[in-house]
């Protein structure tokens, strides 16, 4: 018992020391940029993307569905930065508005996946036993589907639409997230403070929320940053197949599919810019995710990057 008390005291002293060490916000960001320049580049891309989505009406030159008379398939120029499509719509405006879809889907799906995954993962790791076995068998079954196959089936059930894409991707991502969080929970449970919390009579809920959750937050943040890119990529594939956000609202994936495809030969810019936007965005999130993982939780190296 005395050992435990001593260990607890030492741990709390260490925590205090660490808290004093912790840099204030702006300095921490500066240090991150110096240590992880590629991660910082990724962060910059992400910031630009979010700004683009938020300020779309001011950045875009035209409305996303505005058909400009006599401007069918015009090549990129000073007036139309990325050219126009087969219906005479400005590609730059459509790409800018498309950022909204990507940002919404990315953050929305990550939110759902991580909330569901955290709940399932922590309870499964904490309670163990039969509950854990049952939950893990369902997760197994869920994970044995290739993601595109499940999501096509789910989207066919839900029908196309922004909210449905977010829901479907979130539910699929939850299985993966719950696996990782369950693992972290089990290793956190080994700690003395969980045992002492139980000893002083804390309820299950209190132990899970107050003692385990704060210690898996690092893992959750890493999963979220890596997941964002994967979800945006998945949304584009889904829209490409016609199960994503319905037209005329521009989604980068959808801009690469459908009736426009036959015009790519005469107007290659229609094919180039939306794909470039997807690649750059996902590249940014992946770079940032990698760097955040290295800083917060190096054990997760090699995880994630893409939904399967």
């Amino acid at each position, binding site marked *: 018992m005395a050992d435990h008390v001593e260990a607890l005291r030492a741990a709390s002293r260490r925590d205090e020391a660490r808290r004093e060490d912790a840099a204030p916000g702006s300095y921490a960001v500066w240090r991150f940029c110096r240590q992880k320049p590629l991660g910082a580049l990724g962060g910059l891309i992400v910031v630009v993307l979010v700004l683009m989505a938020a300020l779309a009406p001011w950045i875009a030159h035209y409305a996303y569905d505005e058909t400009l008379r006599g401007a069918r398939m015009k090549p990129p120029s000073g007036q139309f930065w990325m050219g126009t499509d087969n219906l005479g719509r400005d590609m730059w405006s459509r790409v800018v508005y498309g950022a909204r879809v990507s940002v919404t889907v990315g953050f929305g799906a990550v939110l759902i996946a991580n909330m569901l995954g955290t709940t399932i993962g922590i309870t499964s790791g904490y309670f163990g036993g039969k509950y854990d076995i049952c939950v893990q*068998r369902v997760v197994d079954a869920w994970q*044995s589907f290739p993601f595109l196959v499940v999501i096509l*089936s789910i989207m066919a059930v839900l029908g196309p639409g922004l909210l449905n894409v977010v829901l479907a991707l979130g539910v699929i991502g939850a299985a993966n997230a719950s696996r990782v969080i369950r693992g972290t929970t089990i290793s956190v449970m080994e700690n003395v403070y969980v045992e002492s919390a139980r000893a002083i009579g804390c309820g299950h809920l209190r132990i899970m929320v107050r003692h385990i959750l704060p210690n898996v937050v690092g893992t959750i943040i890493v999963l979220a940053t890596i997941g964002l890119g994967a979800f945006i990529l998945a949304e584009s594939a889904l829209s490409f197949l016609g199960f994503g956000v319905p037209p005329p609202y521009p989604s980068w994936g959808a801009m690469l599919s459908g009736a426009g495809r036959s015009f790519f030969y005469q107007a290659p810019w229609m094919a180039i810019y939306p794909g470039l936007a*997807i690649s750059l965005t996902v590249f940014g999130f992946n770079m940032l995710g990698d760097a955040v993982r290295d800083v917060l939780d190096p054990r997760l190296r090699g995880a994630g990057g893409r939904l399967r």
Partner: protein
Amino acid sequence: MRKYVLRRLVVAIPSLLIASFIVFSLPRLLPGDVVQLMLEERAYGKDLEDLRAKLGLDRPIYIQYGEWLGRVVRGHLGESLWTKRPVIEELTRRLPVSLKLGFLALAFSISIALPIGILAAIRQDTLADYIARSLAILGLSIPGFWLATLAVVVPAIWWGWSPPIQFTEFSTDPWAHVLQFLLPAFILGIASSAAIMRLTRAALLEVLRQDYVRTAWAKGARERSVILKHALKNALIPVITVLGIQIAQILGGTVIFELIFGLPGMGRFLFDAINQRDYPVIQGINLLIVSVVVLMNLLVDACYAVLDPRIRY
């Protein structure tokens, strides 16, 4: 070893059963059921209830599931609601196309990923390493369907040539048959090669810091021998795990690539079936895919024992 594989098979059964129920019930939740769709298309002139009864869709879902499972175990996957042809017949015709595409993609991805991953690890923090890592993240970021689209469009604009999008049977022209798989398989393989490369590098770096590797260096083994004989074999264990995951990803990816390159495989079959709400076809394909993935994971586990003598079951 045999005991372990048997035990794993038994554990896989509940997962497969749950998966089969998901497979069975998902397509039934599709809005606008097939009966309405068929009547609208005037494929059948009779009234709704009649057709529903004929297709067996009027009974409770658990009875349908029980009957379906019973038939599946005996190897009957039912017949397509539209073409009336047995699903199993259609699948055996289309499976080889997807398998060829999948295995070729996997072969491409491994043969790109392993050498680059090894190089990046043994030359850590050099220019080669940075280039390899950046390329890998790029490979994870570029959507395959975009690359595939560019691969069709760009040569057509520059050289007036585009890869074949008409399917050629092996019997008509064996050479053209093989050729048409190369490009889609290569692009499909890029994404998974990036994932495998990253993991190979990370795993090898970890193993290279182990004592036995230092011992190997100390006793004067050549670099080639240290890396390939001592280190790589142990580094490959996590890589094999990811390979199992990559197989699932590649199988899913075939949907998009078969559509773009006009290959009549399973992925395209699934896409059409979902659009037509052809339950037996959707179920048959999903069940097949899930079984392949579960089987692959089992194979992956069995591979561990071969690679690492310390793992004994």
